């Protein structure tokens, strides 16, 4: 038995990260089965309804209201959780009345006042809920600001309109769903502290940009600019508008000597445009289109199968030596990824090494995961089905830790692949969280092979994260691709009897 209770705070707003933190705190109270705090937009209410958390009280909530939803064992516990939510909300807000006199300076509420405070602003970083992001972006563009849209769930038609308008105004729109950029040496949103250098990166993938920039940094190279364009930029509808604009910018950027383009395989028409533009470029271009058919290079253009290969091509360094062979294990591979592009890269590597793979985000040639079907399985935990209504696994590793604990106990699993992404925006100690799970798993657990995307200049510290993992017996590869190669060469399919035992 359980009860669902909703409470609506009219005209209340806090950002989604703050709300999710409170929801997590509530979930850990005794007797609380599930809790969620969301603004009452139609999409959020649909989400609450889907998960059975919407009660009558919140049905008429509006986008400027806050909905607190709790499922608890009984009404008293639900009520207690609502009260706890109110206390947490009050604690994070402005000082309550009657507190010591501090200047109650009003926050800046619009572009006009923001530009008074920073008249030379040239970039708006937008992370409001997706249904409002395009409106803010449009206002920023009209104010002459370049835009980075971190928000996802922005309608495709709005993305196209924004990018067209940006081109008219000679501005960039990075995103929507752009998680990473490195502009003028400054990491934005989820990015790493890498030295400045000669390689310019255009990326439709946030973690792809992070991995390549970190591999370049470890190879002694630097990044001039890392321009995110959003995952849909190279789709038929968007037509690569910002990828092409970013290529123009990097071609004329004096600091940039070589260019890397990272994306999923584009639509054929867009592919032709990008190839034509790259061929005209006065600077060498490396194209890393993860999962695309292998192609021969042409003059001025190099094709890279993996992010690792792209970093090598751009740095001029050769790929790391193939790691020493390890004792073979029989069983299945499980990959648990916080970075979608790292998951895609691992699929490419496993397939190139002769393995069939399944994924919830399959690259061309991989299978979609089917319940009950045996096989190697790589899961992108940052995909929508895992992140709706909860924080991304890079911010909050709780979900991955649960999954990790489960696969470590799963019969027939030989090895587990993990990515650990650090840098701005990421969890303060993701390796430490993984180490906790490994400590609890006992000595007969499957092999764990990980890589860390980051640098020593990141707050979490690359070396510290690596050491933390190794201390618990994890193998830490020098790149995500290498981790996948190690596993590919270590694992043999399970014997039939092993499979039957499941």
């Amino acid at each position, binding site marked *: 038995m359980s009860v669902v209770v909703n409470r609506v705070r009219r005209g209340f*707003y806090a950002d989604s990260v703050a709300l999710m933190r409170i929801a997590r705190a509530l979930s850990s109270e005794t007797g609380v089965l599930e809790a969620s705090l969301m603004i009452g937009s139609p999409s959020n209410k649909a989400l609450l309804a889907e998960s059975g958390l919407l009660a009558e009280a919140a049905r008429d909530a509006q986008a*400027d209201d806050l909905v607190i939803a709790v499922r608890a064992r009984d009404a008293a516990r639900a009520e207690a959780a609502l009260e706890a939510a109110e206390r947490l909300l009050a604690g994070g807000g402005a000082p309550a009345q009657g507190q010591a006199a501090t200047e109650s300076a009003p926050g800046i509420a619009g572009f006009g*006042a923001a*530009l008074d405070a*920073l008249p030379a602003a040239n970039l*708006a970083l937008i*992370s409001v809920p997706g249904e409002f992001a395009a409106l803010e972006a449009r206002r920023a563009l009209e104010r002459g600001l370049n835009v980075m849209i971190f928000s996802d769930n922005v309608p495709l038609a709005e993305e196209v309109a924004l990018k067209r308008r940006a081109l008219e105004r000679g501005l960039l729109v990075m995103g929507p769903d752009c998680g990473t950029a490195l502009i003028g040496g400054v*990491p934005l949103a989820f990015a790493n502290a890498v030295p400045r250098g000669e390689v310019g990166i255009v990326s439709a993938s946030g973690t792809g940009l992070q991995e390549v920039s970190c591999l370049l940094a470890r190879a002694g190279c630097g990044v001039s600019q890392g321009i995110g364009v959003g995952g849909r930029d190279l789709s038929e509808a968007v037509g690569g508008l910002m990828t092409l604009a970013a290529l123009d*910018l990097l071609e004329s950027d004096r600091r940039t000597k070589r260019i890397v383009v990272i994306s999923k395989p584009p639509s054929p028409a867009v592919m032709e445009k990008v190839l034509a533009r790259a061929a005209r470029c006065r600077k060498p271009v490396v194209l890393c289109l993860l999962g695309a058919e292998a192609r021969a290079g042409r003059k001025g253009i190099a094709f890279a199968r993996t992010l690792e290969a792209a970093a090598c091509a751009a740095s001029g360094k050769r790929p790391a030596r193939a790691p020493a062979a390890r004792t073979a294990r029989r069983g299945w591979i499980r990959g648990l990824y916080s970075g979608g592009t790292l998951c895609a890269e691992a699929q490419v590597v496993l397939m190139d090494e002769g393995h069939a793979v399944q994924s919830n985000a399959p690259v061309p040639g991989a299978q979609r995961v089917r319940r009950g079907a045996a096989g190697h399985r790589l899961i992108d935990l940052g995909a929508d089905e895992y992140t709706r209504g909860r924080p991304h696994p890079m911010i909050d590793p709780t979900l991955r830790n649960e999954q990790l604990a489960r696969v470590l106990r799963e019969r027939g699993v030989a090895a587990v692949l993990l990515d650990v992404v650090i840098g701005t*925006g990421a969890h303060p100690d993701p390796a430490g969280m993984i180490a906790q799970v490994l400590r609890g798993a006992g000595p007969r657990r499957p092999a764990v092979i990980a890589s860390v995307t980051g640098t020593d200049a990141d707050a979490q510290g690359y070396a510290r994260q690596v050491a933390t993992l190794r201390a618990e017996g994890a193998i830490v590869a020098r790149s995500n691709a290498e981790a996948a190669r190690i596993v590919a060469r270590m694992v043999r399919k399970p014997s039939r009897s092993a499979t039957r035992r499941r």
Partner: protein
Amino acid sequence: MSSNSLLGGAPRVVNIGLRGFADEIASQGADVVQVDWRPPAPARRAVLELLARLGAREAAIARANDEGLRRMQSANPVLVDVQPAGKVIAGLGERVLLHAGPPIGWERMCGPMRGAVAGAIVFEGWASDLAAAERLAASGGVTFHPNHYFDAVGPMTGITTRSMPVLVVENRAPGAGNRAYCMINEGLGKVMRFGANDEEVLARLAWLRDVFGPLLGAALRAAGGLELVPLVARGLAMGDEMHQRNVACSALTLRAMAPHLAQAAGDTETLSKCLAFIAGNEQFFLNIGMVMGKSIMDPVRGLEACSLVAAMCRNGTDFGVRVSGTGDAWFTAPVEMPQGLYFPGYSEADANPDMGDSAIMETIGLGAFAMASAPAVVGFVGAGRASDAVAFTRAMGQITLARNPRWTMPALDFQGVPAGIDLRRVVESGIQPAINTGIAHRRAGVGQVGAGVARAPLGCFDAALVAFARSLGIET
């Protein structure tokens, strides 16, 4: 591409949404400003989309606004005279009553407004008693117009008729020369601006008409006028915000005019009464400040593409806004109740909704906008702490385009008062202009029952934005 400038150095970021991103950027040493974003009410979405599209006209609007601000800030209002309203206000004839706020007829007028109308009709002799006056007003026997149509303003009910003496302010800025008018402040207690209309009220009006007005007029003419901008500057430094509190400016006015009043008065008895009248009314300067405000804002009316708010006012039923670029059109919404403190024995249940042309004070950057200079009013207007007064001024600074260098606030390191309300900024930020106000009893004749802060309803500004966009060829 202008985005080349993006790649030129560290980005300078406006961060809208997750505060953590701004903190990370700041820790990298890059410039960042955090916008505290809140989702707009669903009904306002369309107007916000329109606002975004209006950005395409930024250059033209900025040019027009610069001209509007120049006119505001170069204004030189001088109190020059007192004259019967009918003599100086063209068109204010028989059976015409001017009222505060946007246009309204008898049937929609609130209690105090009706009380003042009836009293003024009797005062003018258009009816023999109050009952007859009400019948006359209800039957269409008189004509109502807003003060604002006649270069005039009036506090609270703002009822102005032909024989009432009005303060005359002339804007002596080069190229301006416009004049504005406002009746003389009657004092506190039972007064017509709060709807009172008994014999005592009418007798005081007659004395103002026959004795005080002519004497003050003569004194002003003899003095060559009283320059108001420097006087207000000193008042700000002395703790006035010129709407809720006029203690300093009233005293400064008395000090400046006393010698000339003495010269002009025929006898010491009259002089004594007149000096006592000014000295006994701490709000004496309010009406002078209002007519000053009107003379400053009138040259800002009707500038194409100018998004400055030219007037805010309320008639006790509707709140009205005029915007420079949309000419004489009014944009109205139901007026809100002021939030504040009540005199002993009264409560919110007794309060009339917000009323008066006095929001012209906020339109020029005084009143609630200059609250930081008047910590003494903070308790009265519902805010608690002196620091809250600063917060008021800072918030109003977000919806204005300039700081007025002639009127500075000591408490804010002599920063100028926030001046020039930008329609677009109100719509964008959702910050409602605050107005310091007295609160009238909802029944005619009782008078003032409290004081507080009222908010200009967003609906006026949203409606104005639609019309403003249309004036620039941008349709919804």
